[in-house]
């Protein structure tokens, strides 16, 4: 227990002084469901950092909805690095002048060391034989996912279903819109966030298939192990970036640029990728990814840029008031 040290730090904070830094400290501001992941990653990085530089590092974590986190950083939450699940939330920080606009080019794979995709979780034995997006549009299947107007997770679900329909109907947008309308029509309840949708599905036993990030399906299946929920990967899905960036302005002020950069680069290393794979994320390191081939079914991944022309276009064409999402989201 380090309560005396914490008391001193709290006292220092009360008096308005910054706590003294005897070692490297890093504040990683992250999305809301990544607590266990970073609890596994951080000690491994600390060991690696001590081995390569001889210095110790403490990594503090803040978790919350990533839009809210971005807002807090704009208002002064002293994040050194962000590890988010929405690219647009890092763009917000770039717009606020806290990091360069070309942050995607500073690290490999568009600054996304790992990624995921919308996938399915079905009831034990998959009684309705749900295998692909087509099955979600069936009359006898009730899919569960949160409200795409409030949940970034559900926005990916909507876009993935739309992209699937485009690919299977010769890029016919009318057909794609009918397709997603059919899916929306049989969703029994639209919760505001992913956690609530999970509860609806797993605790209230509503619906036949939960659609969420593949990275979450493993954790949910484990949490509700007694129910025997099964993971299903559709034939095609949408690449969901988990972007990371150094918050340049804060890191400079805190003198943490070096360790912050090293931390994010380390996420691409085989050691970090191994841990990420165990948490059901898809990996950028192909050697490590091959080890997880059994638990991560092959899938055709399309990207937001290729299908929709980027997030700005999505905002204008799909998410704006009265745009496509509003037209197909019939039973909200």
């Amino acid at each position: 227990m380090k309560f005396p040290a914490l008391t001193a730090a709290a006292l220092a904070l009360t008096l308005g002084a910054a706590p003294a830094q005897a070692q490297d400290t890093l504040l990683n501001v992250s999305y809301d469901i990544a607590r266990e992941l970073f609890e596994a990653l951080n000690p491994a990085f600390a060991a690696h950092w001590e081995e390569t530089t001889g210095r110790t590092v403490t990594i503090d974590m803040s978790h919350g909805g990533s839009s809210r986190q971005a807002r807090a950083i704009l208002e002064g939450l002293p994040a050194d690095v962000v590890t988010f699940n929405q690219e647009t939330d890092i763009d917000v920080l770039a717009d606020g002048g806290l990091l360069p606009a070309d942050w995607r080019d500073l690290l490999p794979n568009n600054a996304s060391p790992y990624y995921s995709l919308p996938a399915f979780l079905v009831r034990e034995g998959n009684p309705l034989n749900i295998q692909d997006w087509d099955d979600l549009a069936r009359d006898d299947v009730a899919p569960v996912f949160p409200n795409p107007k409030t949940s970034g997770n559900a926005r990916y679900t909507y876009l993935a279903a739309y992209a699937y329909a485009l690919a299977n109907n010769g890029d016919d947008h009318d057909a794609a819109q009918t397709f997603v309308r059919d899916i929306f029509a049989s969703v029994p309840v639209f919760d505001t966030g992913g956690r609530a949708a999970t509860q609806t599905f797993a605790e209230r036993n509503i619906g036949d298939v939960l659609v969420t990030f593949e990275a979450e399906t493993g954790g949910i299946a484990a949490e509700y192990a007694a129910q025997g929920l099964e993971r299903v990967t559709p034939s095609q899905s949408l690449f969901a970036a988990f972007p990371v960036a150094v918050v340049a302005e804060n890191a400079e002020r805190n003198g943490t640029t070096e360790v912050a950069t090293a931390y994010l680069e380390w996420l691409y290393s085989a050691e970090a990728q191994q841990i990420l794979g165990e948490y059901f994320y898809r990996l950028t390191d192909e050697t490590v990814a091959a080890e997880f081939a059994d638990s991560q079914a092959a899938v055709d991944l399309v990207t937001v840029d290729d299908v929709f022309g980027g997030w700005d276009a999505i905002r204008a064409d799909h998410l704006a008031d009265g745009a496509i999402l509003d037209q197909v989201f019939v039973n909200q």
Partner: protein
Amino acid sequence: MTHTHLPGQTRQGERLLIGIAVVTTLLFIAAPLVYIFARAFSQGWQVYAENILHPATLHAIWLTTVVAIIVVPLNVAFGVAAAWAVAKHRFPGRGILVTIIEIPFSISPIIAGICYLLLYGRQGLLGPWLQANDLQVMFALPGIVLVTMFVTAPFVAREVLPLMQAQGSEQEEAAVTLGANGWQVFTRVTLPNIRWALLYGAVLCTARAVGEFGGVSVVSGNIRGQTNTLPLHVELLFNDLNAVGAFAAASTLTLIAVVALILKAVLEGRRA
């Protein structure tokens, strides 16, 4: 006589009302309370202890305690001073002061949090000055204390004020004529008269300070092991699919609430 009831009817009506009250109490209060502990212990004592003894949970308990230790005495002082001013003195703006004391009751805590954020945050009115002087108010202990103080400000004043008003100032005036100075009047006459109401208010203030969620969630920044208070930690664990951990942390909050309720009941007896 316009209201004539047969004795049997009255008894039936009573039974029905009592039945409704009992069922409602069970459903809305007793069941959730029992459920918290049932879930917390659902995987045994050991898992419960592991969750409570997790450094992040311990720190959340500690932080919440520190906030209460700072906030409650300040609000007791504020509450007594405000009630004293309003009850024992006549001055212009007295009505406005009473209204100001009660503002936190009617304002949602999240609005208080956002106001402080917009004032003290990086993009706020005082933000640039604070940053230039390296003062971290938001997303640190001072911000959490500020918001909690705001939210819990009325509790002591609201409990003490009616009592002071009912007692009037005759005893104080008598003390003054017998030669007591201001401090003596306060400690020997006023304070003993209001002590149970004061304690009662302090208990309520503590319970509210410990449980505050909405306002604090805006200014905390949710840094685990630094600015995550117990209610925020419960939410984090819950979002993270760690139900047992969330309920274990919640059980400590519930215990504090139950102790506060017992104290409140005892104090109510004393006050009457």
